[in-house]
Structures are given as structure tokens and as C-alpha cells.
């Protein structure tokens, strides 16, 4: 035996770890689980370890103080050698971790792995997902910039809606009456000590259960899970058709782990670190705060909920979702595992993916927000001014100056909060236009107090010209009849 072997033996005589580690590594797994579908759990663990390492590296420079944090991030980005790269790795690692955890969860769900006897593994996994999201949110706070500041405001506004306890929760969350130094300090404690500590504990528990209960076998359509017989069947499977995890299945995990790390590094190199955006100075109000990628869907949802639905949805929604995820293995702990015979499960996953994807896509360009600079930045396209009367052109000026453009587009330029007005004259008659402008309605503010009669007349005259060539504007036939106006004459005047 060589020197290294002797040293190894010396340690093992005292640690007694070699045998259990060998047992764990070589435990038999069903052959068909050595699949590329089974690599996401170990990939999530790999990214988590990457986050631990890069997080500790960042903590060497980062200052968790509301007055210094932003400057210390600037120093990391610009002064410290490769500080930008470590920040970028940590930021992209966070995105990858959320993504990989979600993919892992979908795979486990579709392969029925949450069923007996792996219920608790699934439940611990649900908490791991929540902690991962907690890490993503608190990490965004530590990047103490304008988005972080106003994001905390959004968090506080949501928390404050809890009946009775709301104000107490807000003060606990902020560490005081406002978003300030104490807020950042406590989110630092959460992000660096509390949640990672819990994550490590839960990851160990999760892994232990995977080892003890065995990895979920590849689901075969028609092979049903029954509490009475499953464990026996699984042992048959691993004993008869099993293969040792190392090296039979582990090589795919190793390859994918390295690939994921490479992908994070490639994104970090190519796209660089996230922010920080502007200084967290609440007196700078020229800002449109947005959350990080994985919370964009929530940002979108919050603008579509009707006001009366918002508080119940915000407070009850998460409870229902978490309760459903936790109760899932008890609701369907037995039966069919294969996704080929679980159409509702597949459709549910697709539906949720489409909803989240759509909301995320919408939050990318926020059609619900007024374009704050459209009134001064986007000109009225020429075709809407050509050959118009003086009054109509005056109306176009009113249209710009009164910021109608911030919510209404013309020629695809301008806000999308309200409908595009390129052909509004086809939809609304003169009277309806006047009423809509003055009284508002349908989510439009009333402009009666902010427009003089002359301005309203000019504006409506301009709006009445907004119809496609060859398509007549809407008209009130009864009015024409009562006033005895010649239809052709009216239309002629309006082209």
C-alpha cells in the first residue's frame, strides 16, 4: 500500500466514512433512470454550490449598508479585478437556479415522482422552491439600486394589505417606518444567513430521502403505484434490473453539471452583471421600476387584476397555490405515474407555462403603463395632418399637449394603455367622442376640467378625421335627421 493509501486509511479509521459513502455511491438504481431527464436535480445542486461560492466572494467586497451598498457594487463592477465577472456569475447563477429548479419540479411532477413513498421529498422540494424564490427576491434587494428600493415599496404595499397585522408586518419587513438602512441590513441577514442556512438543511434532507427511498423509476404507462406493493416492486426493479449509480448513471449528471456551469459563465461573460441601476435615492422620481426576470409575471398580473380583486388575490392566491403544492401527493399519492396517461397533469403544466410566459412577455413592454414621454417625444404622423383644416391641426396640438398620446397611439407610436386611435372616428360619433373626452370612463380619466370648450372642439374635430381612407366615420343618423344635415355634405367635409 502506498503512502496515500496509508494516509487515507489513517483518516478512515477515525472518520469511518468510506463505507457509507461507497454504499451511497454504488446503491443500485433502475437502469432506465440513467436518463438525461434525471439530471436537473443534480444541476440545481450544482448551481446552488456555485451561488454559495460566488456569494462568499461577493461578500468580501460588498457593504450591506444603505449608504454604501450601491458604491460597493460600483467598485465591484469597475475597480476590483474581475469583480464584474463574479457579480455576473452570481446574477446569472440566480436566474439559472430558478429555471433549473422549476424544470426539475415539472419533470418530477410529470414523471409522478411525488407519489408514494416520495411525498415528503416533494414537500421538502416545494419549500426548496419557495426558498429559491426568497433568495432571488432578497438578492434583488441587496443590489441596492432604484429597482430594489421601489421593489421593496411594492413588497411593503402588498404586505400592508394583510388584515389587522398588515402594518406590523410592514414594519417588521422594513425594520422601521420607511425603506432605509435597517431594511437592507435585515435583507442581508436573510439572504446570507437565514435562507441559505435553511436551504442547506433542506437540500440535505431532500438528498437523504432520494438515497433512502431510491430514485423514481422511469414511469411505464399502466404500471400503477399501490401503497401495499410499491416498495416490493421497486426493490425487485433495482435488484433485478438495477445498476450502481456510480458510474452507471452519474456520468450524465456530471456532464450536465459542467454544461450548466459553462452556460452560466458564458452568459456572465457575454451579458455582464445586472445593474446596479440608478442610486437608491427616493427623490429621483424619474424612474420606472421593474422586478427581476422571474418576478415579471407577478408585475404583469398586478396590473391586470381588477381593483376589487387585488387584495384577495394577493393574500389568498399564494396560500392556495402553496397549499395545493403541499397537498398534491396526498390528493394523488397512488395510481398512474406516466405523463402519457395523465392528460390533465400535462395540460395543467402547459396552461401554467403559457400564463406565466404571456405575463412575462407583456411585462417586458408594459402595455398597461402610460408612455411618460410620448406627448413630447412621438410626433403625430404626417398622414394624420396632411390636408387638414386649421381647427383640426389645432386639435392635433391639443392631443399632444394634453398628453393623450401617453396612453393612445397613433401610427403605432405612443402609449398602449388606451386603444389606438388611428380609426377612432369609425367607432365613435362626434357626440360620443365629446362625452368620452369630457367624462372619461372605461378606465379613461375625465378631461372636463382640463380642457376649455375651444380645446375640446378642436380635439374632437381632429379625432373625427381619424378613420381609414374610404371608410366613413361613425355618425348618429337620428341626429342628422333631426338637424336636417345633409349626409353627403357632412361626409364630404370630413373627407
Amino acid at each position, binding site marked *: 500500500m502506498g503512502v496515500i493509501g496509508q494516509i487515507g486509511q489513517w483518516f478512515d479509521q477515525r472518520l469511518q466514512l468510506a463505507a457509507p459513502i461507497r454504499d451511497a455511491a454504488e446503491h443500485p438504481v433502475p437502469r432506465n433512470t440513467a436518463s438525461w431527464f434525471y439530471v436537473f436535480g443534480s444541476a440545481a445542486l450544482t448551481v446552488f454550490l456555485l451561488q454559495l461560492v460566488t456569494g462568499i466572494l461577493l461578500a468580501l467586497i460588498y457593504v450591506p449598508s444603505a449608504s454604501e451598498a450601491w458604491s460597493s457594487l460600483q467598485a465591484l463592477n469597475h475597480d476590483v479585478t474581475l469583480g464584474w465577472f463574479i457579480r455576473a456569475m452570481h446574477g446569472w447563477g440566480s436566474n439559472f437556479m430558478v429555471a433549473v429548479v422549476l424544470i426539475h419540479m415539472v419533470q418530477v411532477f410529470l414523471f409522478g415522482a411525488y407519489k408514494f413513498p416520495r411525498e415528503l421529498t416533494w414537500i421538502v422540494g416545494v419549500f426548496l422552491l419557495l426558498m429559491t424564490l426568497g433568495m432571488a427576491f432578497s438578492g434583488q434587494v441587496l443590489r441596492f439600486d432604484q429597482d430594489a428600493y421601489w421593489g421593496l415599496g411594492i413588497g411593503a404595499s402588498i404586505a400592508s394589505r394583510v388584515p389587522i397585522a398588515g402594518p406590523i408586518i410592514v414594519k417588521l419587513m422594513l425594520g422601521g417606518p420607511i425603506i432605509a438602512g*435597517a431594511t437592507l441590513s435585515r435583507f442581508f441577514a436573510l439572504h446570507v444567513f437565514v435562507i441559505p442556512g435553511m436551504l442547506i438543511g433542506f437540500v440535505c434532507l431532500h438528498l437523504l430521502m432520494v438515497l433512502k427511498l431510491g430514485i423514481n423509476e422511469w414511469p411505464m404507462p399502466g404500471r400503477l403505484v399501490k401503497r401495499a406493493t410499491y416498495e416490493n416492486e421497486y426493490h425487485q426493479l433495482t435488484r433485478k434490473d438495477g445498476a450502481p449509480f456510480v458510474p452507471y448513471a452519474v456520468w450524465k449528471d456530471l456532464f450536465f453539471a459542467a454544461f450548466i456551469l459553462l452556460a452560466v459563465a458564458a452568459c456572465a461573460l457575454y451579458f455582464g452583471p445586472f445593474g446596479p441601476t440608478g442610486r437608491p435615492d427616493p427623490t429621483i422620481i424619474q424612474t420606472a421600476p421593474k422586478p427581476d426576470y422571474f418576478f415579471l409575471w407577478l408585475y404583469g398580473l398586478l396590473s391586470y387584476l381588477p381593483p376589487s380583486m387585488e387584495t384577495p388575490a394577493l393574500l389568498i392566491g399564494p396560500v392556495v397555490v402553496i397549499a395545493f403544492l403541499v397537498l398534491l401527493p396526498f390528493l394523488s399519492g397512488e395510481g398512474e405515474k406516466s405523463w402519457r396517461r395523465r392528460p390533465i397533469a400535462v395540460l395543467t403544466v402547459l396552461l401554467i407555462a403559457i400564463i406565466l410566459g404571456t405575463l412575462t412577455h407583456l411585462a417586458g413592454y408594459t402595455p398597461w403603463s402610460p408612455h*411618460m414621454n410620448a406627448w413630447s417625444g412621438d410626433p403625430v404622423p404626417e398622414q394624420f395632418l396632411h390636408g387638414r383644416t386649421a381647427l383640426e391641426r389645432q386639435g392635433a396640438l391639443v392631443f399632444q399637449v394634453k398628453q393623450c398620446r401617453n396612453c393612445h397611439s397613433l401610427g403605432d407610436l405612443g402609449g398602449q394603455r388606451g386603444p389606438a386611435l388611428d380609426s377612432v372616428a369609425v367607432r365613435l360619433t362626434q357626440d360620443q367622442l365629446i362625452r368620452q373626452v369630457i367624462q372619461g370612463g372605461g378606465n379613461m380619466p375625465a378631461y372636463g376640467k382640463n380642457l376649455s370648450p375651444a380645446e375640446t372642439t378642436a380635439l374632437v374635430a381632429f379625432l373625427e378625421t381619424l378613420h381609414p381612407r374610404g371608410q366613413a366615420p361613425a355618425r348618429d343618423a337620428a341626429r342628422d335627421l333631426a338637424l336636417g344635415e345633409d349626409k353627403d355634405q357632412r361626409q364630404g367635409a370630413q373627407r
Partner: protein
Amino acid sequence: MTGENTISRRGLFMKLGILFNGLVATALTVPIVRFLLSSVTRGRASAYLSWVPLGRVSEFPEGETRLATFTNPYVTPTDGKTVDTACWVRRVEGEQFQVFAINCAHLGCPVRWFPQSGLFMCPCHGGAYYRDGSRASGPPERGLFEYPYKVKDGMVTIQAGELPTPGSPTASLFGNEPPCGARSELVSIESKLSACSKTNALLRKTKTWA
């Protein structure tokens, strides 16, 4: 000798040991919980609130709405710029003011004032408010939060100190309450205003802590 109803000397000591630890743990819980709740207990009875000056009356032209900034009264050494707060000051006429929080009543984003259209607009989810702070459109359930103010020796002073949020009692006592400020877009602004000014005046009288 141990029977069913007897307990061994060691067993008794172990139970006493657990009891002893339980007592010590309970005793230690009190300071820990009090420490954790300090940010809540400290602010009890509106202790975070105080009157802060915004500027001279003459700095705010009549009929206009201007941005003003103030330093939050409760400051800790590491707060940096975060204690600087902005608000919108509307001088209605004479010494009659409305001081609006910068935070949208929906989810707290900073609203911007557009004098040309007489609207406050929020960049986050598209909430809009009229010049008097009442809700015009979008997801907010109510009008803008208002700070209680007073004019003394030519200075506009507001009572501030807490982040105005939809659920905070200090924020919801002032400003346009949902019954008069929100909803029914088709009601004319004038009727809304008269209905609101009465209720709000009443609210101001009954609920000021000054």
C-alpha cells in the same frame, strides 16, 4: 427497582434537566422576541411621526402642484440617501394645501405630475389620479395618500415619518377615501369634489394627531 408508576433517579434527573432547559429557553425568548419586534414597538402610538417643514408658502404658486423633498424625521446612521423623501405639494389657494405622498396608492411606485393634463400618472401599472389626488383610472383602489399639513409662520409643515402603504393606518386616514375618490368614472368631477371635500374635512378634523 422501577415499576410502572415509579421513576428512576436518572430518569427524574433527565426530566428535571429538560425542564430546566425549557425554563431558561423561555426566559431567553423574551429578550429575543422584544429585540425582533423593536421596529414595531418603537413606532407604537405614532412615535415615528413628526412635523417636518417643506418650505415657505411663497415657494408654492397658487393653483400649481410642485415637487418638494424632506428628510424623514427618523434617521439612523446607515440610511444614506434613503431618508430623503419626495412629495407633491398642491397649493389650492391662499393657505389651503394638499400634500400628496409620492407613492402610488396601488403598490407604492413614484407617481409623476403632468400639469398639462392635470393628472398624476404612475409608471408601474398605469394608475392615474386627478389634480386633487382622487383616483382617475387604473388599478389603484383609492386616491393618493395625503400628509396632514399646517401652515405656521409662513412655513408649510407636514406630519410624516412612515412609508404610506395601502394598509397603514396613518396613510389611510387622509386623502381621498374610496367612497368619494374612486370608482364611478361617469360621475362628474365637480360632484365628486364636493362630496369628497366634506368627508375629507370631517376626517381631518377628527383624526389629526397634532
